[in-house]
């Protein structure tokens, strides 16, 4: 038997009343008024009998009447006709989401987080399905729903604890938005043939720092009936500031300023901080950053020629983010080999314009080398260059050397300035002949350009893609034989290719069918010429200055080197060999990383993200504002439907059975009997009281 309103059963406590009244009435009834006690002496009372309850039947009737009334008000019903519970017994689906970002490295935080997670693990019932995820820069699953379900019932919590014990906070940032949306998506992937669950809950165990990235939360489509419960890991209030060395624009050294960005957390109570190069001479530099602000300062002057260094921040309470590593940027020397007879001083030639189109920057120096200078042979010249410029006909020996160089994966640009370049092209392609003829038209314009190709992709914008005003007074018609792997990147309006990409071995030969000198065309004086040449140089891989400052989790591009493998060394001393050109992904620790290629050492600095230093607590309202369904599964909004439905079923069953009526009838019958019995007893008492 069940009760619709069981709290009315507390009314059964009222039976204490009749019991009390029976005791009280007994003493009251046995009192006799008498005219005077002048001649009477008291006798000691015999208390044994007074403790007994008399009229037990009457008392039982009264108590039974009260019990029946209480039971009737509690509205009993027989639950055997109740439909079988559906969803509510199928348990909960819970995703435990643990923050393992660098801010959780603060003392005590990770222990608390793991303790909270363990508490949750002990609370889960056999019907609950649990997934555990850790997140920092990106979420990673520790235990999936299916894995949890496959574990034996009694060992689930222990196995999950073992997984938790194996992880610890790293040095990465906090991508909270990505983690929450990924956790919520677990419910979608876990749905399907399984029975519907009563509650879906994401338990976020995190320090909820202000620097967490919340991208992706706004507008996210949360699964139905999903709630996010926030278990905030907190510690004593502490002041914290962080720093980040900015990528220098030029080479490091006394003449270049290294700038450092310092941020002070919003809840910080200290605003005077010190910056100092670790293990380097020189006193600390004091900076002032008010709480909640970020300011940029020139770093303390480093020693001359310092390749790597560690800048240390002091003055705050939290230490995990007080070091910033620095690797001095190297100058990118780009060498372009020029084969041919042209000189850079000949204004009618091509080289004159080419040498002037690449600006000399502090991070990149472009050098042109020709056979006339100090190169013994073309091969020697080419091996020291990253790009070759071929302005005119070459000797057959040079052609052979260039072809061999190209086959190793290099790039060269051949400009067909006249039809005499035809044998050179044929030799480079290792063909007996390539048809190159002088075009007869007055001038030609570029008619068709493949903007999807990386060379022209930067121009793929309506503002930049107009090449039609560039006149080509002379150009050559090139006919590539069928067996050659080539791609026409741009064509003249007569249909002949203007710029053609030809693959030779692993290398690439770009063939331009007209010169850019004023006698040939307006290309050199066009605004398109510098970006096009820059793009070609970058495409060859030699033009981009290499970054030296990275964040944890970033991939470090492989340094430019003719070597086939690059040996990477992490700050902890572990070495990894990767093929040349493969970026290094394993930047999980701040520090100085070294790449050794072809005997040269390239140093890179990997630092913590500055956002991770903003430790002020993030308000839960901010999450709610972004649409995160905060709350617990126990409240009315999470699983109200099933409980309401069950309540309605109970009410309907109770109203159909109406057992309370029978209880009321029984109570009335007992009351009637009680009246009769008590009347009879009172008459007896009155008769006893009458004086015989």
């Amino acid at each position, binding site marked *: 038997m069940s009760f619709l309103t069981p709290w009315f059963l507390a009314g059964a406590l009222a039976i204490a009343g009749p019991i009390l009244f029976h005791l009280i009435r007994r003493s009251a009834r046995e009192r006799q*008024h008498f*005219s005077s*006690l002048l001649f009477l002496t008291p006798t000691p009372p015999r208390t044994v009998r007074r403790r007994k309850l008399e009229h037990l039947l009457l008392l039982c009737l009264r108590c039974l009447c009260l019990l029946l009334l209480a039971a009737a008000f509690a509205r009993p019903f027989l639950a055997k006709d109740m439909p079988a519970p559906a969803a509510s017994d199928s348990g909960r689906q819970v995703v435990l989401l643990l923050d393992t970002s660098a801010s959780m490295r603060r003392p005590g935080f990770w222990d608390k987080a793991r303790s909270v997670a363990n508490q949750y693990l002990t609370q889960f019932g056999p019907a609950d399905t649990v997934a555990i995820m850790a997140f920092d820069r990106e979420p990673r699953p520790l235990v999936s729903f299916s894995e949890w379900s496959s574990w034996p019932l009694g060992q689930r919590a222990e196995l999950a604890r073992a997984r938790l014990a194996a992880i610890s906070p790293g040095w990465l940032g906090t991508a909270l938005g990505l983690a929450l949306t990924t956790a919520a998506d677990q419910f979608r992937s876990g749905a399907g043939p399984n029975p519907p669950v009563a509650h879906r809950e994401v338990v976020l165990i995190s320090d909820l720092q202000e620097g967490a990235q919340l991208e992706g939360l706004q507008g996210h489509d949360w699964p139905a009936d999903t709630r996010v419960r926030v278990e905030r890991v907190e510690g004593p209030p502490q002041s914290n500031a962080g720093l980040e060395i900015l990528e220098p624009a030029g080479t490091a050294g006394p003449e270049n300023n290294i700038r450092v960005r310092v941020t002070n957390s919003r809840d910080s109570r200290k605003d005077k901080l010190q910056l100092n190069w670790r293990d380097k001479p020189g006193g600390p530099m004091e900076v002032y950053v008010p709480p909640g602000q970020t300011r940029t300062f020139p770093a303390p002057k480093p020693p001359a020629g310092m390749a790597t260094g560690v800048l240390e921040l002091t003055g705050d309470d939290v230490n995990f983010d007080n070091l910033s590593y620095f690797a001095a940027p190297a100058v990118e020397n780009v060498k372009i080999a020029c084969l041919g007879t042209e000189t850079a001083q000949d204004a009618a030639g091509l080289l004159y314009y080419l040498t002037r189109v690449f600006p000399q920057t502090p991070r990149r120096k472009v050098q042109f080398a020709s056979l006339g200078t100090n190169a013994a042979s073309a091969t020697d010249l080419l091996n020291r260059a990253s790009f070759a410029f071929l302005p005119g006909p070459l000797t057959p020996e040079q052609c052979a050397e260039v072809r061999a160089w190209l086959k190793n994966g290099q790039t060269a640009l051949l400009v067909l300035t006249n039809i005499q370049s035809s044998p050179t092209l044929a030799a480079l392609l290792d063909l007996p002949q390539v048809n190159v003829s002088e075009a007869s038209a007055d001038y030609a314009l570029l008619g068709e350009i493949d903007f999807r190709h990386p060379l022209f992709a930067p121009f793929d914008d309506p503002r930049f893609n107009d090449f039609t005003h560039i006149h080509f007074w002379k150009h050559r018609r090139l006919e590539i034989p069928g067996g050659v792997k080539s791609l026409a990147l741009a064509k003249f309006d007569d249909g002949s290719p203007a710029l053609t990409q030809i693959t030779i071995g692993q290398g690439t030969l770009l063939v331009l069918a007209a010169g850019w000198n004023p006698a040939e065309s307006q290309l050199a004086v066009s605004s398109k010429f510098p970006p096009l040449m820059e793009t070609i140089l970058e495409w060859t891989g030699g033009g981009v200055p290499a970054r030296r400052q990275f964040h944890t989790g970033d991939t470090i591009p492989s340094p430019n080197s003719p070597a086939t493998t690059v040996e990477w060394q992490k700050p902890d001393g572990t070495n990894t060999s990767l093929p040349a050109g493969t970026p290094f992904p394993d930047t999980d620790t701040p520090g100085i990383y070294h790449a050794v290629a072809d005997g040269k050492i390239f140093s890179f600095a990997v630092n913590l993200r500055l956002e991770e230093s903003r430790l002020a607590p993030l308000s839960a309202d901010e999450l709610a504002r972004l649409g995160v369904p905060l709350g617990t599964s126990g409240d009315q909004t999470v699983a109200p439907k099933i409980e309401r439905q069950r309540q309605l079923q109970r009410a309907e069953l109770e109203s159909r059975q109406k057992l309370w009526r029978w209880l009321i009838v029984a109570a009335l019958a007992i009351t009637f009997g009680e009246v009769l019995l008590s009347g009879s007893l009172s008459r007896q008492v009155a008769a006893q009281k009458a004086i015989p």
Partner: protein
Amino acid sequence: MNSFGDLGLVDAKALMAIRTLELRARVIVEGFWSGLHRSPFHGFSVEFTEYRPYSPGEDTRYLDWRLLARSDRYYLKKFEDETNLRCQLLVDQSRSMNYRSLAYSKSDYARTFAATLAWFLHEQGDAVGLFTFDEQVRDYFPPRHRKGHLRQIMLALEREPSGRSTDLVAPLRRVAEMSRKRGLIVLLSDLLVPIAPLEQALVRLAAAGNEIVVFQVLDPSELSFPFDRAMLFRDVENQQDFYIDPVAVRAEYQRRMEAHRESAEGVCRKVGAAFYRITTDHPMDLALRDFLRARSRRGRMVRRRTQPVSAP
């Protein structure tokens, strides 16, 4: 009717069923008269009022000065003392008098008996007064012989008593102060008080020359103490509770009650008062007869003062 009915007496229970107090008194007195062919007290209160010539030596206080002024003759005017008996009825109306084991209480009985006496004496032409008291004096009617006066007494006796405790000393002292003339004083009370104060009060009344008759009115259960179960007994006057096992204390109670009666009777004898104990199941005719018998026995003993008839 009980056994007393066979003797031609009115049963107390039947009598108390009559609602009006005056009617009850009349029933008793008339029944009493019809049983008497010749009253030994006939002419007991013959009154005469006359003028007679003044003789020298007589008290001049009774000289009729008006007649003297009008006719220049000396006549003595007889003092207007209508009766030769002044009876003061003292009725105890304390809370203990409300006790009952019958259908009526001691107070009902005592008031009925007082009304009967008043009626009887009034019929004889005697002056009757009433004095009700509990711990203090409640009603006071001086002895007079008037039709309306009897009526007032009846009404006063009709009122239910509302007293608490019994204090005989103060009310009886008050009676002695207020009754300047000697007469008959009839005290109706259960006398459930200590003897010493009672004696003190009676002595004071007797010293004033009054003739005293004491009726101790008790409930039958106060004599027999018929309770059989141990329980709390509450004194109706001072609300004191005693847990009493009646079986154990009954004999002692009756002994003390008898001792108390003897003491009270001794005190009455000492002061020359008549003492009668009546219970509420006792026929009132007998009580009245006892009263008259006491009156006749003590008739010669009472020093009756006649008004001086002396010339100035």
